[in-house]
């Protein structure tokens, strides 16, 4: 029956996708949902048809045969960026890749990505599948397809009304424990991620930074639940537990190097090889994203020099420190979904000189997570310390007023806080206010509407934000 139902599922899925896009929607999950109703095994069957890569451009080097067919990236923060970076790397050898669009990271979206890659005669065009996978969906997806490499970025509190940080880590751990053949690429600096090596996979690799993670969110040992000792040996992020669980030595270690307008670091493999990685995007968390993508590339046998070039030319995804410019003023758009991501995103404000107009969009739709109490776990207090630099705050989104309350209790002067419910009006107001920089921190559901206004009113791309004139 699959002889009829599979192509039927695929073609109806494609039709649904086409109709969806033509009528202005993204169409990135619906095709998968429809196809699965027609033929539940559609994902398994299509994944099995992925062609093995014929050509890797470092075959001569005798790399391990890590020609992974399916590479997946999961974790709380950084999934989209790491997947995007890997996509750029794989694209350089012009191989066809099955790739799920951002946001379509649950089972329907993953199915839709495979459906999109099917050609006229039912062949799946792709040597690799590169999938961003939502942590909660990992078990069901792993039930249907076999992953070759799984990259886990980190676990932190996010959308606690869906599941807690501890549960997300548990869910992934259980899924991975059932499939020891998966190769794992893990963040050594996050205890809940590093512990996944305990599941005894066939192979695992660690990446990390020299300093360790500046704010280890996990307070308790994931092995024995005792309180972790954090910060010793002059390394603020090193962690250890009396039960023997310690931060593992990374196979790829990155050392941040200061650069302006970009993220720059020295990456060293345990083989001794060193590379300077440069990313033209702001945000300290990108050290981790680059390390994850670079190490995965090494596992795949990709040419490191070409990956270095890939990173240098990296063009950010929408809302990932995306740069615009308006009348010569740099405008930065960043997506913030949880406390950890927000705290790290705020750090890009530090080197800015001048006066920064901030637009903070907070919403509580299902996609954003209905519980907004996490905003109290973000250090907005630091913004109240310099009212000359941060003198204008515009709050918008469905919970804009709540964000304003957050700022008030963070010490920001009430007269500097404006609540504008309509997101378009809010952006326009932010652009018109006097200041040297405009920085937007947006919830997931407000990202595209805000971006749409920015695209219509400003120029995409722009000068490096902190290279702007200083007022001194």
């Amino acid at each position, binding site marked *: 029956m699959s002889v009829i139902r599979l192509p039927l599922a695929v073609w109806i899925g494609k039709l649904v996708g086409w109709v969806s896009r033509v009528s202005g929607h993204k169409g990135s999950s619906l095709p998968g949902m429809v196809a699965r109703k027609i033929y539940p095994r559609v994902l398994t069957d299509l994944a099995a048809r992925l062609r093995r890569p014929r050509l890797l451009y470092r075959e001569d080097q005798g790399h391990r045969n890590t020609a992974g067919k399916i590479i997946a990236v999961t974790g709380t923060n950084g999934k989209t960026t790491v997947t995007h970076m890997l996509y750029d790397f794989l694209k350089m050898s012009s191989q066809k890749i099955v790739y799920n669009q951002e946001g379509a990271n649950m089972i329907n979206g993953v199915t839709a990505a495979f459906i999109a890659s099917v050609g006229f005669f039912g062949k799946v065009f792709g040597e690799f599948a590169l999938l961003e996978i939502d942590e909660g969906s990992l078990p069901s997806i792993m039930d249907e397809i076999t992953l070759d490499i799984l990259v886990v970025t980190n676990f932190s509190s996010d959308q606690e009304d869906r599941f807690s940080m501890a549960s997300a880590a548990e869910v992934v751990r259980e899924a991975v424990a059932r499939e020891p053949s998966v190769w794992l690429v893990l963040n050594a600096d996050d205890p809940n991620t590093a512990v996944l090596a305990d599941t005894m996979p066939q192979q695992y690799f660690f990446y990390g930074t020299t300093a360790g993670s500046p704010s280890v969110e996990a307070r308790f040992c994931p092995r024995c639940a005792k309180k972790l000792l954090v910060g010793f040996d002059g390394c603020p992020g090193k962690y250890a537990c009396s039960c023997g669980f310690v931060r593992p030595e990374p196979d790829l270690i990155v050392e941040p190097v200061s650069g302006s307008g970009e993220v720059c670091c020295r990456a060293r493999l345990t083989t001794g090889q060193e590379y300077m990685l440069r990313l033209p995007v702001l945000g300290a968390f990108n050290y981790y994203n680059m390390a994850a993508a670079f190490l995965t590339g090494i596992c795949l046998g990709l040419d490191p020099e070409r990956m270095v070039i890939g990173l240098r030319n990296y063009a950010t995804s929408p809302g990932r420190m995306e740069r615009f410019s308006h009348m010569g003023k740099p405008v930065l758009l960043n997506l913030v979904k949880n406390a950890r991501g927000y705290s790290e995103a705020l750090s890009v404000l530090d080197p800015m000189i001048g006066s920064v107009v901030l637009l903070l969009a907070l919403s509580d739709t299902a996609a954003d997570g209905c519980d907004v109490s996490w905003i109290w776990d973000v250090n907005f207090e630091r913004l109240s310390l310099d009212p000359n630099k941060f003198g204008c705050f515009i709050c918008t989104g469905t919970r804009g007023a709540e964000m304003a309350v957050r700022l008030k*209790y963070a010490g920001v002067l009430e007269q500097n806080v404006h609540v504008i419910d309509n997101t378009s009006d809010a952006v326009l107001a932010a652009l018109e206010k006097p200041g040297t920089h405009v920085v937007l921190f947006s919830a997931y559901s407000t990202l595209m509407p805000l971006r749409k206004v920015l695209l219509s009113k400003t120029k995409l791309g722009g000068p490096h934000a902190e290279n702007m004139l200083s007022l001194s």
Partner: protein
Amino acid sequence: MLKICYLYPDILNQHGNWGNVAALLKRCVWRKIDVDLIKINPGDPVDFAKVDIVYLGTGSEQARKAVFDDLMPRRDILQTAIEQGMVMLAAGSGCHLLGMYRLTEEGHRVSSLGLISFYTRLTNTFLVGDCVIGMQLAGNEVRIAGFENHREHVVRSEGLAPLGNILYGHGNNGKDKTEGFRYKNVFGTNMASLLPKNPMLTDLLLGAALQNKKSPVKFTTLDNSLEERALDVMLKRLLD
């Protein structure tokens, strides 16, 4: 000098706990009331008799064990302070810990701190979502809005007053239409970061603490228009 004791800020460091502490703190600062924030981590000494307001927040299951282990030896002192009218706010798992015991899914009784007359039941049913309650305050009913996320259900004993009655949401157990508890000056709730947009509740706690000290400090009214706006968003959405 009002002393606010923030219990376990290091292990109960998420879930919006800071919101409750910031609300209490700031509303003193804005009124020019001298206030001292005392952070107590496991093992740190604290004299509950000398503290005016205690905050015990919500956290993970692992954190709960560490909190219980630290508070159990001090429960008698805490009980005396409570009976003498000390002001306390307990949220989420912090609230659940104050009960007599916890009934596991298998039916076993696990001791809690035994300070307030209720017990909790650990279940498979997560009570999650926005929550609005009606609470009696100075003879009027005020609306309080927050967010709950708990699979530990609260069952109050006969004489224990709730914090309020449910107008929207689940509350203590999803059955008896009540939320939280109120005993003397101890306020318990299943909701996290409740105080910021509910300034009347914050002021109730601060007022009670000042009264305990027989403080002559004038309790001025503050401009709550921003908080009211945030609260209104939820009340309009959930009650209309």
